[in-house]
């Protein structure tokens, strides 16, 4: 399997899941931006990124999510990272992004967050 492949799956109305490959770096950072932008244009408010098999993320990969999350949030949605490994979490922590990004333990929690976030206050 291509270690840089990014796949997409609709979970429910307004929610889409993107699965990373084993690597998210300068080779596929643009694809990630494109996937997020396309999802946003396709009326998906919540973009869940499954990082269960992600082994390496470079700062270009981080920048790809960072550069798009603001725009997603501005339109009332969010990007949710889940199944994040300890190694990847360490990098996010080093960059002081652990609390900036919405990070959930697993898909169930991520989906629950989407439901909660959608509920009007």
């Amino acid at each position, binding site marked *: 399997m291509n270690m840089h492949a990014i796949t997409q799956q609709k979970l429910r109305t307004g929610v889409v899941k993107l699965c990373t490959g084993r690597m998210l*770096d*300068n*080779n596929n*950072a*643009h694809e990630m931006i494109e996937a997020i932008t396309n999802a946003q244009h396709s009326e998906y408010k919540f973009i869940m990124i499954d990082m269960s098999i992600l082994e390496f993320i*470079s*700062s*270009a*990969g*981080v*920048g*790809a999510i*960072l*550069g*798009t*999350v*603001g*725009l997603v949030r501005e339109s009332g949605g969010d990007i949710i990272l889940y199944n994040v490994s300890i190694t990847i979490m*360490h*990098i996010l*922590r*080093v*960059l*002081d*992004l*652990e*609390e*900036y990004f919405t990070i959930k333990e697993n898909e169930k929690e991520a989906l629950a967050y989407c439901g909660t976030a959608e509920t009007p206050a």
Partner: protein
Amino acid sequence: MSLSLTTDQAITDRRLLALDALSALSSQFSRDPDFGRLISAFILTISGQCAAADCFIVVHQPGDTGDATLSFATGRFTNLETARYLREFALKGGTLHKEQGLIAVNDLAAYETLTDVYVEIESRGVSIVAPLLCDEQLIGLIGIGKRVDGRQYNADDIALLRTSLNTISPLIANAYLFLEIVNLNKWYLQIIDHIKQGVFVLDASGIVRKVNRRGTDIMAALAPNMVNSGTLIGLSLECLFPEKLFPNWRQKILEAGNIPGGKILESMIAKGPLQDKIFNVRIGKIEHELSSHAETVISLDDITKSKASEQRLFELEKLAEKGAMASSISHELNNFLAMILGGVEITEIMIKKGEHGRAGNALDRLKNNIMQMERFTTGLMDYARLETRKQSTDLNHLISDILSFITVQKRFAKIDTVIQLAPDLPQIEIDSDQIAQLIINTLNNAADAIAETGRPAGRIVITTGRESDHILLTITDNGCGMTPDVKDRLFKQRLTTKEKGHGYGLMTCGKIIANHGAAFDIDSTVGSGTTFCFRIPMA
């Protein structure tokens, strides 16, 4: 907010992460030279490192401070209007940043000239602007938005940013240079793709490294299987020019490749599936400053069509010559017939008048006219019936025989004939009758040329000699000589400068020379004389 992790270890991790990512970017660029992608990846790296969602880079070619800039952005800076302000800011503030380096946007308020754009970019969320410098040349600006955690940039962030910028600036400059080389290479390849010759570049070991479009087309026409089975790149010289399709090409190309300055092999024949093709093949070397291994450039110029036109023209000329010859022969014969008819009529009148003496004179003139006509028709037959039967002949002996009977003729009576024959001349394969005719015609012309000067005596020198695998025969006279125009047309077409000549004698000589594969040189000066030099191959 987790600020507790900005420890020494965390800072080191961040720098390593940044350098790893930048290093990976530059190595990827060398494999896939996409400049836009490289700069975009730089932005992603910087934004990732600084934890800033918004980032932009405005770059221009090193040495170019004009408007030829490229801009790239992430996050909110992708807004077109924001991008326009950032570009304007980069143009206005470039010099300042070259001097001041990295500046917090808050501090820009102090610079009056930048007030307008400062207000704009500050309101659009730019926090830090920094120059991209390479060898102290400004190649662009980078702008970074606020940190996503809301925290101010601290000294560690600034140090990391400086490290990253110091790394990416030369990478951008090198990428530009690399891109320029790639574009230049593409440009040259496009040029050679548009020339009408097929061009093949072979490396020092004789392997094809480059072929232009015309080269591929030529091979596709001559050897479709070769092209259909894949690219021509990587083929050896032997496979590119197989002996069956390109007889003797490989050997000649190899020999020509060793000649300094290259060589043109003219009219090389390639055996095509439908028709043979004729090429002028140029072989040259490309020397490299950095390598002792020279490449070979082979260019094929298809001259099949021009050769066919040439042949057609030649045939038309021959046809026209035949037509002109027939017309000329009719004209000459009519002249003779008119003279003979006139002579018969005069004779008839004289006889009727009983003037037998005058009738006898008229009959003499009639006889002369008929003999002249006979000479003319004999000349024609000589020209038409030249069949070559070569046999081993002693040329010196042949010349001696000819001179023994020709010099007693009246036209040679006052001519001093000198013979200088090489003693060790080998026997040669010639048609002795034809060569004898060539010598006699040349000697007769020499005698006539001497007579034309009006001098009481003349001199003809006949020499033989050997040059490589040819026998040289020279006949020199001190006659009237000939003009360059006459000299150029000699042997090629019916030509005479003599009052009573018909021109077929020289045409016959031309045919004899051609029949023997011989060559000739003429050295002539009007008023001084002429030297004919014939080079006759020994076999």
